[in-house]
């Protein structure tokens, strides 16, 4: 009898792939995430496995991420990016010899970090997905999928066939890229509405995650609040987020990542060094960008100029003590819950994976420390949905309420004055896609099939919740607007071409090269 903690790391980035440009700033989102988050997390899990520490962690690999990590051109660019990073780190180790000793020490650590990342990558033939596949073999890391392009489904439900296509293609992407069937799905932004579970059931997806109020405001009150999974009437299990765990880690005000000893994200050598010095490692158009090498700690509520130097030892110690504290808090929470429950409490803590490492530099260390603590405990254990479902005896049948994990819990992040203009176009494109799929369901003309599949890709790329999210947050808005417009106008262009029986093979070929996501897509899922 142990309380279970399910750490659920949602790994996702929008599909950003510009084979027509040798350098594209937004591709750095992926490159930074690989070096700073995915590799460090995988290394942390490997340390645990090597040391024989039992643990459980769940990672959702979103299909756009699966596709980007499988793209040879993009991964080639990543290799060059990493080589550049190592070169810069080497330069830094010699530059910092003439600066503060602490700075030099940190430079040496970055060089070591990056070289380890490269070695790690080489062990898996340069394919990070191989590392994920290896990690899941032991069952300690459970991988799941996400709906196709991370479309926000509560605002898509007016076109149920598009929702269906998102789910089917999300399962398919995982099967193609990971090699087996995904048991679970992370619904983009935890966006759920009653009925969606039926769609998951038909695709043999066994479980998904919801936010806390999905159970609090469900059709029947949950017997154990959010501390046991429930089953929907269609037989799919739902795990609900524990608000306490999220706040301890996520909250900017009360959470661990804001500790003054942790590394400061915003002071980067890309901005601090003379321009000519960093020029080869930033945007070639001459715009300074983050490089990933940062020497300062958060320090306190001071301006960026007043930050003090980062001490990696202190950072690591802080992560260790935070991990202990978090473990202690989970243990007392579990003890408290045991007092009120006659079964093992299940605590679900979902996070964006990129929080760990990218933004919270010490995050992967924190997780590793925490999982070691959990392994020592008699009261709690880290677990996975598969293992918890396996152990269930009775489960309450509930229809969760419509909800998301966005600000205020519903749809307003993805539907407000800054982004509402996209929905008339998205919905019209969705209707047209289903119309095409119905009309050409039985076509055997290879050119039509290619054009129809390309339509489906463009539509799905336009549907990514990321664009609406970026428009709301106000950073990189221009890029998000362009991507929405670009994919929708490509869709309309190909739609017109199909309808007028005037398909231009070369432009289809060109779009296939530009947006090579889901080579195995089947437009018939829209019929």
């Amino acid at each position, binding site marked *: 009898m142990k309380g279970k903690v399910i750490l659920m790391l949602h790994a996702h980035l929008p599909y950003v792939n510009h084979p027509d440009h040798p350098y594209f700033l937004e591709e750095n989102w992926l490159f930074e995430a690989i070096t700073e988050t995915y590799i460090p997390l995988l290394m942390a899990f490997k340390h645990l496995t090597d040391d024989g520490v039992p643990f459980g962690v769940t990672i959702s690999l979103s299909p756009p991420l699966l596709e980007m990590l499988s793209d040879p051109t993009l991964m080639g660019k990543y290799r060059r990016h990493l080589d550049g990073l190592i070169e810069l780190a080497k330069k830094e180790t010699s530059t910092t010899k003439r600066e503060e000793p602490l700075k030099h020490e940190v430079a040496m650590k970055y060089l070591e970090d990056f070289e380890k990342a490269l070695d790690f990558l080489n062990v898996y033939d340069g394919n990070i997905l191989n590392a994920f596949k290896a990690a899941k073999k032991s069952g300690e890391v459970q991988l799941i999928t996400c709906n196709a392009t991370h479309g926000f489904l509560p605002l898509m439900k007016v076109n149920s066939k598009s929702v269906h296509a998102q789910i089917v293609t999300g399962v398919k992407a995982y099967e193609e890229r990971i090699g087996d069937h995904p048991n679970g799905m992370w619904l983009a932004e935890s966006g759920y509405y009653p009925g969606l579970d039926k769609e998951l059931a038909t695709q043999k997806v066994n479980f998904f995650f919801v936010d806390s109020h999905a159970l609090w405001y469900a059709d029947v009150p949950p017997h154990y609040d959010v501390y046991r999974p429930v089953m929907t009437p269609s037989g799919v299990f739902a795990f609900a987020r524990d608000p306490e765990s999220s706040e301890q880690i996520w909250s900017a005000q009360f959470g661990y990542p804001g500790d003054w000893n942790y590394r400061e994200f915003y002071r980067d050598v890309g901005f601090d060094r003379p321009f000519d010095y960093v020029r080869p490692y930033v945007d070639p158009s001459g715009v300074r960008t983050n490089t990933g090498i940062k020497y300062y700690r958060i320090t306190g509520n001071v301006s960026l100029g007043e930050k003090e130097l980062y001490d990696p030892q202190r950072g690591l110690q802080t992560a260790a003590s935070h991990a202990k504290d978090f473990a202690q808090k989970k243990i007392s929470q579990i003890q408290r819950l045991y007092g009120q429950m006659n079964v093992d409490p299940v605590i679900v803590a979902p996070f964006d994976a990129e929080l760990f490492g990218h933004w919270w530099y010490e995050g992967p260390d924190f997780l590793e420390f925490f999982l070691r603590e959990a392994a020592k405990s008699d009261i709690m254990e880290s677990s996975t949905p598969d293992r918890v479902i396996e152990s269930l005896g009775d489960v309450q049948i509930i229809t969760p309420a*419509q909800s998301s994990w966005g600000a205020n819990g519903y749809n307003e992040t993805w539907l407000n004055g800054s982004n509402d203009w996209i929905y008339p176009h998205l919905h019209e494109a969705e209707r047209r896609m289903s119309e095409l799929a119905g009309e050409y369901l039985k076509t055997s003309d290879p050119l039509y099939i290619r054009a129809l599949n390309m339509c489906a890709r463009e539509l799905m790329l336009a549907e990514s919740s990321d664009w609406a999210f970026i428009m709301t947050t106000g*950073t990189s808005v221009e890029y998000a607007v362009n991507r929405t417009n670009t994919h929708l106008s490509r869709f309309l262009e190909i739609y017109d071409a199909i309808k007028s029986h005037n398909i231009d093979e070369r432009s289809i070929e060109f779009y296939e090269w530009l947006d090579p996501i889901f080579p195995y897509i089947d437009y018939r899922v829209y019929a």
Partner: protein
Amino acid sequence: MGEDKTIRQLKKEAMMLKIKGYYNMTKSELAEVISRKKTDLSKKIRQLEDMEVEDLRKLSKELNLKIPWKSSRATFVKKIKETFDKFKIDGVEPENRAEESVTPHSSRVNKVEVEETIEQKVDKSKNLLPSSYFKDAFVGLDVNPHWIHFYWDLSNETLDTLKSHLPVILRVYDVTYIEFNGINAHRTFEMEIDDQTRKYYVFVPQSGADYIAEIGYKEGSKFIPVLRSTLVSTPPSSPKTAQMELWMDLKVNRRFTEMATSKKVMKIERLVGSTSMPTSGSRSGSGSGAFFVLSGRRGS
């Protein structure tokens, strides 16, 4: 199709399309350049109504049209449209692409050329999404438990009907548990809206309820609906009560019911508040991504 055309016909077309240097081109070069130009022009036709006067001037110059500089926007649009029509009369359909006739290019260099043209096209098309699809659509989307977003698009007929019966009226009905027949709603809300408006956010009192909207006009005191929206349900924002709980015994795969307990699992949540009422009750999101905020273009 282009392959049926002689080189003379192609040159004539190219001349009409004001393609520079056409007289030195080979047949396949002509076919390619003509098809590019046509694609470009067909894009522009669709764009025409939304173009600024400045752009119209530029375009007319590109087409070698003699239109007085100070002409009105409408004149520019009219003349340019006439020119496009002329192309059509002469058998040049802007939508028709002659690229099939072009020998397929396999070399990388050629590919890049084509890519650049399409790339430019895409860049130009940035604001190319139509402002209307000219057909009736009326969709309700829930924002949160108390706000609904409606957007609509109108066919020309519907637009004419509304325009001849101004003002336009927007009605919202609470139809929770009702088979709606136009007059049996629990509550009916109504307002006048501008005939140019195509979207609106409305406040609705009830969470976890079903709503339908209609757009129409008044004949005396009678409301005449013209367009009805999709059904939209606001998400619930409060707990339900239940006497019975439904359970499943997974070992034997059998469902059973149990009396619901009034005893709740106690959890402690952080209390949010302040000594004076804040102007907007903001609460931070529970999860969703800090990633872009951190990695985006700085200072742009």
